[in-house]
């Protein structure tokens, strides 16, 4: 058999396999989800605001979404400053101007503001067969677990055996002047749920006064500067994307971990509700979680293949829940901002 025939047969087998897989996924859908597909096809597009992704990631999400439901729609995705966007949406809803966004993909903190402004659509996600544990208030559905207190290290500068294992290791004098973190008190709200308020405050004060910790404007600056060897240890940012590129950076398995969730929220003026629901439903499925892990390196701690699942294995986890955030978020932010001398 010639090489070209083998190639053609292989491609055909992949295409047929892919089609079968897509059909199989759609066939297994709950009736309530299937009922949305016809409307979604008519809508043709959906706009999701929240994650900062590159074009190839967006088109890969788009491809997999279409494949899962056997549809052909356009996915628009954009990221930016969530808190400023929430303020804008609040006014747009008040004035009746269309926001142009169907789904806001964000943290609990931002969702509070949108809820208060009555800018969100109430929807019972369990009616689509989604696990009730994934509900985020009356509006949202959880998409993945996140942390703003990851610890990473440069593998050229730090041996794995020397990497921090517990939070207090960061106060070791050998790291003096060699740690960086974002100029954001949000990091310390996450540390608080992991470590408790008293210990977190002590740790932050120690890092500020004894370790000469260097602070960066953005979370992404932290991983970049650790990977290029300017700093040995980075606090706050994950480094999953750089690890995949082969950069000399690893995530330190520091425990306990502080985690929270991001969730999808449909806006009040959602223009493409069927697609918005299909998108959110898909992400909660194993197929969607695999897409998140493959494309964005994110997922639930329980999702197979998600880097965060591997990192959290065997670790004690403190959860930054909606209730905890609502009760303590503002107070903690103010307190840590003061220690960090942030206005």
């Amino acid at each position: 058999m010639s090489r070209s025939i083998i190639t053609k047969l292989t491609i055909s087998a992949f295409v047929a396999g892919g089609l079968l897989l897509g059909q199989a996924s759609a066939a297994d859908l709950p009736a309530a989800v299937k009922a949305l597909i016809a409307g979604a096809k008519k809508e043709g597009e959906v706009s999701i605001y929240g994650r900062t992704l590159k074009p190839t990631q967006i088109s890969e999400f788009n491809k997999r979404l279409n494949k899962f439901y056997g549809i052909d729609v356009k996915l628009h995705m954009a990221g930016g400053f969530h808190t400023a966007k929430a303020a804008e949406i609040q006014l747009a809803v008040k004035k009746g101007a269309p926001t142009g966004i169907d789904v806001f993909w964000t943290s609990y903190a931002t969702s509070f503001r949108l809820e208060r402004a009555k800018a969100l659509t109430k929807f019972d996600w369990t009616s689509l067969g989604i696990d009730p544990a994934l509900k985020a208030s009356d509006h949202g559905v959880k998409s993945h677990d996140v942390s703003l207190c990851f610890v990473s290290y440069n593998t050229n500068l730090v041996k794995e055996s020397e990497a921090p294992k517990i939070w207090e290791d960061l106060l070791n004098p050998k790291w003096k002047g060699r740690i960086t973190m974002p100029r954001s008190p949000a990091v310390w709200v996450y540390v608080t749920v992991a470590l408790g308020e008293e210990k977190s405050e002590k740790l932050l004060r120690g890092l500020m006064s004894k370790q000469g910790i260097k602070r960066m404007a953005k979370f992404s600056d932290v991983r970049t500067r650790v990977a290029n060897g300017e700093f040995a240890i980075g606090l706050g940012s994950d480094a999953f994307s750089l690890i995949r590129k082969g950069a000399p950076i690893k995530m330190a398995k520091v425990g306990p971990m502080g985690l929270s969730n991001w969730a999808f929220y449909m806006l009040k003026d959602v223009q493409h509700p069927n697609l918005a629901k299909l998108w959110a439903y898909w992400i909660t499925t194993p197929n969607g979680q695999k897409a998140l892990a493959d494309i964005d390196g994110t997922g639930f701690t329980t999702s197979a293949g998600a880097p965060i699942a591997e990192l959290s294995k065997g670790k004690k986890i403190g959860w930054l829940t909606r209730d905890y955030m609502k009760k303590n978020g503002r107070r903690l932010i103010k307190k840590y901002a003061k220690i960090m001398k942030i206005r």
Partner: protein
Amino acid sequence: MRLGARKISGIVWVYGIAFVGLAFILVSLMGNAVGSFSIEGDIGTFTLSNYVDLFKDEELGPVTLRTLMLGVGSVAVMMLFAFPFAWLITRTDFPWKGPLFTLLTAKLAIPGFITAMAYIWLFNPSSGLLNKMFNATGIGAEPIFNVYQLSWICFLQGIVLTPACVFMMLPAFRNMDASLEEAAWVSGVSKFETIRRVVLPLLGPGVLAATLFFFVISIEIFDIVALIGMPGEIEVLVIWIFDAMHPVMGIPNFGLAGAIGMLLFALCGVAIMFYIRMLRQANRYAVIGGKARRFSPQPLGKWKWPAVAFVGFWVFAAVVLPVITLIWVALVPYLQPFSMKAVESMTLISFEEALTYMGGPLRNTAIITVGAIIISITLAASLSWVVTRSRNRAAHWADGIVFLSPAVPTMVAAVAFQFMGISLYSWVPLYGTIWLIAIAMGVRMLAYCTRTMNASSIQIHFELDEVARTSGVSQLMSFRWIFIPIMMPAIFYSALMVGMLAARDLTIPLVMNTGKAATISTLIFDLQSNGDQNAAGAISLYMIVLLALLAVAAHKLTGMSELGVGAGRPRRRKRARRREPAPSPAE
């Protein structure tokens, strides 16, 4: 009488457009002012607490002083290069005017953070290349360079702002009456003395406008402060604005950011009052009359090579190092310092990837850029005419308001425009469109354009207006056929600057994009945030080449490439003669 009424009604259009420009400026200024009296993010709820919080902060004094030092230091470095460059290009026989123009243009397209990144790699105390090389000599263990200092921020901001300042001053340099300089050097006055006693005083408003404008800009821009000031604990007011506007959790504190913005207004206010005073004495600087004034450029003589070396230093520090950094960033899979291992990992894949990413964003960027140029030039030309030619005292105050606008933090301005779009949506549905982004960007650049145009306009003698008026030419016709042609160099350089900055501005598109209007700058931001610095670097390089080529082409096509005094004028005079207005029946 009917004829007179028609003449008056014509110029009303110019006043009308100027008024629209002023109204747009007021959107950001009022947004800032209203925000400063609002509780955190709830715009419109009155409070004085932001001012109370700001003024009771014991760090306010030192931080304000440091901010002033940052502004003064950056402007000093900038003027050290910009004034000689403008003089070399327009008044001398400097041999490489064309390449210098191209490099100045290319520099505008290089993001400021790339320049900062290059210097961090070289001079950071822990892993900076030059520190490592010094340590390898065994002379000392301590690093000899530390980039995390205020002086480095001033130096870097100074060299980054140089091209924009040169382009702001070029039109005034080109318009300056050559006979005064010629008279000085045929009388045996040295070149240095000629500059000090003839050139500088005549260019007073232009140089002062540039100095004040860039003082405001240098205390407001953030990219270099973010990369060097933050890790170096160099607290300045723009870091406080960043803290207020970019919380990862909670609500952006428009209130505190607005109050800090008002403090910046106050810092700039004194300088602006001085500038307005100078505008009132415009006649003292008028050097363009009705007579032709071509002259030969001054020979540099023995100063030619020192001038080349001086320009070469800036080119190396401001263009070569950042471009090498960008090329390096684009070639290696992730951001890393130079090493043999890194060299082995070099690949051109990012240049291929970049091309596949750029289509849609490039189209959006082109639309926004062209839109911003049209909006800013139209509004600025009208505003500049009203301010400098109408002899209306109130107009000078209007100009002061325009001058204040750069002190509004860019993000506050972007949010203000977004809020304006939402509020006016039922009448003008611009919110959520790319056009609102173009308007915001065009208006954001108005202060730059009006500074550039005012400096040129102030050089036009009022006798030209009077001759036109007594000849029965309407104000609108003299605006079209006298003011605009003489202002062409200023219009060209303003358009160039708006184009360059609009093509790479990030904050406004990032705040105002609802997901369907990705631009090249938001694309670069997205790529960087996801660890794809190499693709981001490749896109930046493509943009530098593209923008530099476009600028050089525009330069040649418009006749501005004939650098030097009087260059380009004959062509405009011919056109003006061809389209000379018909004599008025009143004559």
